[in-house]
């Protein structure tokens, strides 16, 4: 795999993100409403003089294109501006929250791929078997359940009936001085329900997809070749077939990443998870435009990186793509 390929993809990703920045900036600035009034409202009220000084302070009295230039050149230098609501730089707010979001999204992604693919492979072995039926039904159900509703149902269940998992936040505040290992276990404990809630819909999709993909691969000539060699069923399934069936799964995993971030937004809101999604949601309710733009920027960056990783792993998984661009 060539570095030039990665660099080209990265450069292209940056270009996409520049587009994201410009589009969002223009959208937000052209929309009706005076951000200064919003800021003043958050302070608890204001006079005209205060409104004017707020406009001055946040550069809201300059022409839109000048504001755009200031914003874009700021972003290029890593400065995402100041939050309208919090008295803090947006980059700091995001830095505090991107970790929990990545933790949640990656856990959910791994959970859904591992379990989903395993179920799918098992199901593909007997296309008419019980397991296969279960996977098909489960996949359709998993796809149809609203993710926020699953979360709420789990909270109802685990808050009262079966209180074995915490239903809120990422950490017990009272353990904040505890040793690292204890804290890690505590975070993992808090992670179970949100990650599972987020994973369930994708888990179902991966199960269904890998079942279909495996069935297709299992009908191919090279699987017959493997069997003709005398390869065991397990080797046929997991060595010969899965490597090939993994290609469409990888594609979908890459494409799903954006959706996963959207799902994380809902899950974070339901479980009070201290991540970027909840920050985005609350910022939207507060009309905290710089923060919204910052989160959109970082979320798109995550998607760009995820797509790049998908491309790279795709090339690793499929030798036919190597050495091409």
């Amino acid at each position: 795999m060539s570095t030039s390929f990665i660099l080209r993809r990265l450069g292209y990703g940056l270009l996409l993100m520049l587009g994201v920045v410009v589009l969002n900036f223009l959208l937000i600035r052209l929309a009706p409403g005076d951000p200064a009034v919003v800021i003043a409202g958050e302070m608890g009220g204001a006079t005209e003089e205060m409104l004017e000084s707020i406009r001055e302070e946040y550069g809201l009295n300059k022409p839109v294109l000048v504001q755009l230039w200031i914003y874009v050149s700021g972003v290029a230098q890593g400065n995402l501006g100041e939050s309208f609501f919090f008295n803090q730089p947006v980059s700091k707010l995001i830095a505090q929250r991107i970790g929990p979001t990545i933790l949640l999204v990656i856990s959910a992604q791994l959970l859904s791929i591992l379990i989903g693919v395993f179920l799918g492979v098992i199901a593909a072995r007997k296309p008419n078997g019980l397991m296969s039926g279960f996977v098909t039904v489960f996949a359709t159900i998993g796809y149809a359940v609203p993710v926020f509703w699953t979360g709420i149902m789990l909270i109802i269940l685990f808050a009262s009936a079966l209180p074995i998992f915490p239903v809120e936040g990422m950490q017990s505040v009272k353990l904040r001085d505890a040793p690292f290992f204890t804290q890690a276990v505590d975070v993992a404990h808090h992670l179970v329900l949100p990650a599972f809630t987020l994973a369930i819909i994708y888990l179902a999709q991966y199960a269904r997809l890998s079942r279909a993909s495996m069935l297709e691969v299992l009908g191919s000539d090279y699987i017959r070749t493997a069997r003709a060699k005398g390869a065991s069923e397990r080797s046929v399934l997991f060595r010969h077939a899965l490597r090939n069936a993994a290609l469409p799964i990888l594609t979908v995993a890459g494409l799903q990443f954006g959706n996963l971030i959207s799902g994380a937004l809902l899950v974070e809101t339901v479980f009070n998870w201290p991540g970027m999604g909840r920050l985005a949601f609350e910022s939207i309710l507060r009309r905290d435009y710089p923060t919204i733009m910052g989160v959109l920027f970082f979320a798109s960056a995550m998607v760009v990186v995820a797509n790049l990783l998908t491309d790279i792993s795709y090339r690793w998984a499929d030798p036919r793509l190597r050495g091409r661009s």
Partner: protein
Amino acid sequence: MSDMTDYKAESPAREAWRMFRRNVPALAGVLILGIIVLLTLYGQFFYAGDAFDVVWAPHEPPGATAEYPLGTDYLGRDIIAGLLTGGGPTLAVGAVAAAITMVIGITLGALAGFYGGWVDNLLMRITEFFQVLPALLFAMVLVTLFSPSLWTIAIAIGVVSWPQTARLTRAEFFKIKELEYVTAARAIGARNKRIIWTVILPNAMPPLIVSATLTIGVAILFEAGLSFLGLGDPNVMSWGLMIGANREYILDAWWPVTFPGLAIFFTVFAVSLIGDGLNDAFNPKLRER
């Protein structure tokens, strides 16, 4: 097994219909969706009441009063009335958003797939751009900026969902435009516009119809998500709004959240059963035995 193909070939549509008719889950989907649509369309005539009206004490559990069998919400509004009136907007937004998605997606996908070259390049860059934006987040911003109404919500969902349709259409067009009958159409001098819309598109329809069906399901979930977050139109009852509004009381009352969730679930479930059925019907070869 080529040995087992039919002696006489049926027309593809008839074959698809025959396959669909025999697909029990798909028929169940049609039945469930039919019942839900009928209930949301006509249910209010049999079961009177504005869903916003406070009719009884708050948080009356299901079964406690004969008059309000599914109980009441935090304001004392009737859950059944909410379910019946809240379905319409949810379904309507789902359908309109899916329509917008299909129109944008098919148009751009068709142009890209047919013309290829720089047109394809440009349109695909735009598509990728929209795929990089996290859909729900972007839709939330759009809805907030342009104040929530059923239309802005449907448009926002459509604007963020079309890339997948565009890619699918493009792929189909790439495949079909090389086939003999397209060449034949060119040979008799048909114009591009004609070839795109009357020659290639009809043949690309089967996967697009399946995709459209599934898009409706996705759009319904999307609308529910936005309403749940409080970004739906607060003055129009919808299932998502019911869940979002009652969410803070789940420790005291599970029913105002559970029933609308089930309603969303069954609707999307039915839609996806139909989508799967159509998929199987249009692609008997890919059918997962």
